[in-house]
């Protein structure tokens, strides 16, 4: 069974997913950071595949993408690093990346590699749902990869239902109409949106992303969903860290406790 399914079968509340950019702050940090995330007590690891033009991300993540590329990160390099990581890391792992680098690598080859190294799912923000259904759904499924879609406060109920019908992992709720790292705190308007989606009784679990940075925002988000995703705030921890292992674990503990 896919590790994402196993996770949500047993844990329905306060699921914490942590995003980091592969190759940041240093090229070889990828697997050590994954181990530290697991040791800290998070539930899902989201690895960002760096791209020169990440339009759905804010400045913090974009900077980390640029540094990762300067460090020499590439798709080949990432898969090299991931060979054998399953001996050390047991959490579900999701790759988040923009379509162009994956297309150049070859969608087939990419999915095959994901399965080989032990990746469980994908988040491809610029892959539209229709394109996914027409071109890639069968391929992803044949490699046991769960595809995750985003929804935002502007997404219509009809489309949320369509998205819910076309995925079986989790739904990534963008908490405000914003790029990553743009807003802090959670507003009443956002709460209304969380409640509206909660009342739709979707079949998929929901994780709230964008704007989650600490214990307080994590708890608020978790009150209205199955958990949350932290990205930009975690990248800032990595950026300022003198001791990755300690700081990663310390940060995650501070969020979940």
């Amino acid at each position: 069974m896919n590790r994402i399914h196993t996770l949500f079968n047993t844990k329905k509340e306060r699921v914490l997913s942590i995003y980091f950019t592969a190759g940041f702050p240093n090229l070889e940090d990828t697997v050590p950071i994954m181990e530290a995330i697991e040791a800290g007590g998070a539930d899902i690891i989201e690895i960002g595949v760096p791209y020169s033009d990440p339009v759905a991300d804010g400045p913090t993540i974009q900077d980390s993408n640029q540094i990762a590329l300067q460090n020499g990160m590439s798709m080949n390099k990432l898969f090299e690093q991931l060979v054998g990581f399953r001996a050390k890391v047991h959490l579900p792992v999701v790759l988040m990346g923009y379509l162009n680098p994956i297309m150049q690598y070859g969608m087939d080859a990419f999915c095959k590699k994901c399965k080989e190294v032990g990746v469980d799912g994908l988040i491809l923000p610029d892959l539209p749902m229709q394109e996914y259904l027409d071109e890639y759904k069968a391929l992803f499924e044949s490699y046991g990869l769960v595809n995750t879609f985003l929804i935002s406060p502007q997404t219509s109920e009809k489309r949320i239902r369509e998205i819910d019908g076309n995925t079986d992992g989790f739904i990534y709720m963008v908490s405000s109409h914003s790029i990553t790292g743009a807003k802090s705190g959670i507003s009443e308007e956002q709460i209304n949106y969380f409640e509206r989606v909660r009342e739709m009784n979707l079949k998929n679990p929901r994780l709230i992303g964008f704007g989650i940075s600490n214990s307080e925002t994590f708890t608020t988000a978790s009150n209205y969903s199955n958990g949350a995703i932290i990205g930009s705030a975690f990248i800032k921890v990595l950026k300022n860290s003198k001791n990755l292992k300690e700081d990663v674990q310390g940060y995650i503990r501070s969020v979940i406790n």
Partner: protein
Amino acid sequence: MIGVDERGYYGSFGGAFIPEMLHPNVEELKENYEAIMASPEFQAEFRGLLKDYVGRPTPLYFASRLSEKYGAKIYLKREDLCHTGAHKVNNTIGQIILAKKLGKKRIIAETGAGQHGVATATVCALMGMECTVYMGELDIQRQRPNVERMRILGAQVVPATSGSKTLKDATNEAMRAWINNPVDTHYIIGSVVGPHPYPEMVARFQSVISEEIKWQLKEKEGRENPDLVIACVGGGSNAAGAFFHYYNTPEVRLIAAEAGGLGVESGKTAATTAKGTPGILHGSKTILMQTEDGQVVEPHSISAGLDYPGIGPVHAHLFEVGRAEFVAVEDEDAMKSGIELSRLEGIIPAIESAHALYALNMIEFKKDDIIVINLSGRGDKDLETYIKWGNY
């Protein structure tokens, strides 16, 4: 047939590869733009402003001394005489009327050289709408006069400080701003790029260029179809406009002049079809310059308006099926053609347009061929570059 299909594709290029957060905005446009554009009300306002505000129709001018030099009948489509000095305003007029009809309150735009930014700031002033223009930090330094023009017109100019700090990054920033303000804001894209329906919508607004060429040439030559149409291509909006009504008239040769920069093999070029491969950029599948890993490569051109790593999906399609011939004009040659036109016809062209002019030296044509060159903009904005180049 060359044209966009229901899914927003030209052959294998196009589509709308956008984050879900932009889906409602893009869907709203897609659902409405054709009906709005077809409405008599819209047409009356659009045509009225093109005539009285932009100064259309722009002349189709027979360039006799240039013709004599090259041994063909050469006409210049004088988009340089449009209000604000380039064809860009055809599109911004269309889009701002559309934005008003959609009930939008704010306008955002990206700009490279500043021409599209100025054209956007201009129509925002005209319509009393709030305007924010994203511009690469480097371009802000290179194009000071246009930055100040935008500010005089009341627009806010926001520097894009990421990546190479040029047009590509300004486009990223504008897309981000749209994600952050999806409800009341319309994004006026300046070229035939971006997610569907932008490439087609912008091409249709610009298609007034070839619409006019047809009847103007009929008046002057007794025929609607020239033998060749030549236009420069960065993203490709002026070329799309000049080619539009000739896409499916195969006897009219379409010539697209890309920016060769310091040479196609120099690593400092913007010759997308020569150096690019299929991929996804700014929401559409097209041809772009990229590394083997799919990272977008920084282009180079002496002309800021052609300094873009991709081309519009319609041009990728015209290239793929061989409907248009693509040439790569180097910086130095474009500059020479700019001076040549200045001396032969008393017209200082934008350096973008000078690329189209130089194509005359790179293609074969017959002695009595009728050639229309789209003179997309005037050279005032490029004086600094002409002066720095100095070879006149």
